[in-house]
């Protein structure tokens, strides 16, 4: 039984880790009032650049490669998100349109670059250094809990949890977070109080680029091991759903992402749990979606985003 729980939890974490990063990124962006539907594209770029980085530097960094590649994916994510920032903040483009452009551009660009770099192949080579499984020293020896949560598990997921806690602190307990939120709620008021509205919006979008890029990098380096067009297929949108589901609060956003992962892994592993064994598999396969609907209807009230979310702020008005 403990063994089964351990698989459910570790599979759920592997699946959720990229979602947590990306959903937190979306939270920062939307808290600053910029809707970022381009998360999917940012993840794609992050996944691609991390794969390339991993392939070319594995001889230098060895076992640390996936982590450095993850940061690299984040940095490229920032650069890519700047397109969205410039378009929405300075050029006053519609946020959805700009995000859509990001999503259209990323797969085309990455597949094109893959073909250029890898002799016309449609996917990259397989990376040598992956995240793999990690056991935490000391913690793994705790009876029962250690086995379930800390043995042979996904390290990036735990980093993601730490980032979520940090994000909560930054958004709700720091000066920067207060300003970020005020810009997302009422930019005029923030401006009259001397807050650099454009600067805060840039910061929000760039953080979302960083986290989204890292999310993509985690997805490719812990799951598929190579970049292709199917590496990022919808995770960015699931992350957006997690962000809304989690009401733009980093901790609940994280919980929502883990919930998605958990219901997914339950569907896969359910047939091995004794009391679920006799259930026809169609129920288990439908379970993730049914659970999501139930939770949304029963426990989550109205999901209220930042008030000025999606509106272009024009300073002179």
């Amino acid at each position, binding site marked *: 039984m403990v063994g089964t729980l351990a698989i459910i939890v570790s599979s759920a974490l592997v699946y959720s880790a990229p979602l947590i990063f990306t959903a937190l990124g979306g939270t920062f962006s939307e808290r600053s009032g910029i809707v970022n539907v381009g998360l999917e594209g940012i993840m794609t770029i992050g996944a691609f650049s991390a794969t390339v980085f991993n392939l070319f530097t594995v001889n230098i960094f060895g076992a640390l490669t996936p982590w450095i590649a993850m940061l690299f994916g984040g940095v490229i994510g920032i650069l890519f998100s700047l397109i969205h920032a410039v378009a929405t903040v300075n050029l006053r483009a519609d946020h959805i349109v700009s995000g859509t452009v990001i999503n259209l551009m990323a797969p085309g660009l990455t597949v094109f670059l893959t073909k250029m770099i890898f002799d016309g192949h449609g996917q990259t080579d397989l990376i040598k250094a992956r995240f793999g499984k990690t056991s935490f020293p000391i913690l793994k020896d705790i009876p029962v809990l250690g086995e379930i949560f800390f043995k042979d598990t996904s390290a990036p997921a735990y980093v993601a949890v730490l980032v979520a806690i940090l994000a909560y602190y930054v958004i709700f307990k720091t000066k920067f977070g207060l300003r970020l939120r005020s810009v997302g709620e009422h930019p005029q008021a923030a401006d009259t109080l001397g807050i650099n509205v454009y600067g805060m919006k840039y910061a929000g979008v760039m953080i979302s680029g960083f986290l989204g890029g890292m999310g993509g990098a985690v997805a490719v380096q812990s799951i598929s091991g190579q970049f292709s067009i199917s590496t990022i297929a919808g995770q960015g949108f699931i992350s957006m759903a997690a962000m809304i589901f989690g009401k733009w609060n980093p901790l609940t956003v994280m919980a929502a992402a883990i919930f998605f992962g958990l219901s997914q892994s339950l569907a896969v*592993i359910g047939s091995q749990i004794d009391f679920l064994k006799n259930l026809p598999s169609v129920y288990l396969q439908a379970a993730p979606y049914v659970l999501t609907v139930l939770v949304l209807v029963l426990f989550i009230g109205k999901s209220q985003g930042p008030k000025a979310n999606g509106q272009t702020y024009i300073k002179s008005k």
Partner: protein
Amino acid sequence: MKTSKKIGLGLLTLGLAVSLVACGGGKKADDTATGGDKGKGADYSAALVTDVGGVDDKSFNQSAWEGLQEWGKENDKKKGTGGYNYYQSNSDSEFTPNLNSAIDDGFNTVFGIGFKLQPAIEEIADANKDTQFVIIDDVIKGKDNVESVIFKDNEASYLAGIAAAKASKTKHVGFVGGQEGEVIGRFEAGFVDGVKSVDKDIKIDVKYAGSFGDAAKGKSIAAAMYKSGADVIFHASGDTGNGVFSEAIDVMKTKPENPVWVIGVDRDQHDEGEYDGGNVTLTSTLKGVGTVVKTIATDAQDGKYNGGKTEVFGLKDGGVDLTKGQLDEVNPDIQKAVDEAKDKIIAGDIKVPEKPSKK
């Protein structure tokens, strides 16, 4: 309201993105111009429409394209209209447009690579009587301009089953399928029968991911199987199998003392199993799509197109096979058992079932 709009737009974007990438692939067809040399069969041209995925998917499509390229080189054809070409499908909705482009570009023979193209070809064949169609992995009956090609994947999977059963120390093996259906059913049936032929008591987990492109799901299925004691997994699941390899590698890196294996599918997947401490690919089943495409193109060029017929390729004619892989390193007896079974199947002494038995 606003949020639902956002997600809706997001999905729309995803769709657009996929189709835009697709257009990029499709246009490639025109950029190399016609080769106009005359000679015997010089006017003959052939093209293929891929299943979802490109001609470098390291699997089915790639193998078919390599076969067609080989045919083209041997017959001095040029890539492009009037010679040979491919049309890449990046989603199911592109099958019909791609088939139509191939017909419009005047190719004599158009190959549909994969069972998913069956409905599209069936629909289009009657309206284009002058084009010769070939459908791989499925059957279209009663049309004179469609030739069907089927592989006895169950025979190769039977051999894979024997290899798995002999290599398993825990007496517990797994099968991961892509989408449930006739084709993957052949893999399952053959594999299960092969395992049972070695030892009836070996436990076999059978699980379908419901997709050929969901590596994350492949990984969690494999994690569950390995954790519950299986030590060999045969995957017939396309890109979903990347997740199976990824999990096997992770397991080997954490617990090298209990080796686990993956059996690859359709082509030698030795590279996929490689990691810095060894290789998890036990062996792979082979499917000679390339050879078959080449043979049919050559025959059709000589006027020997078998429209309306169904051709079956199995172990006997080299249409399917099992690689040597690392069988000998694990246990020298395995290859012997595999070879024996292979001879028996070819001789007709063993009949491998095509459909999985009802559970």
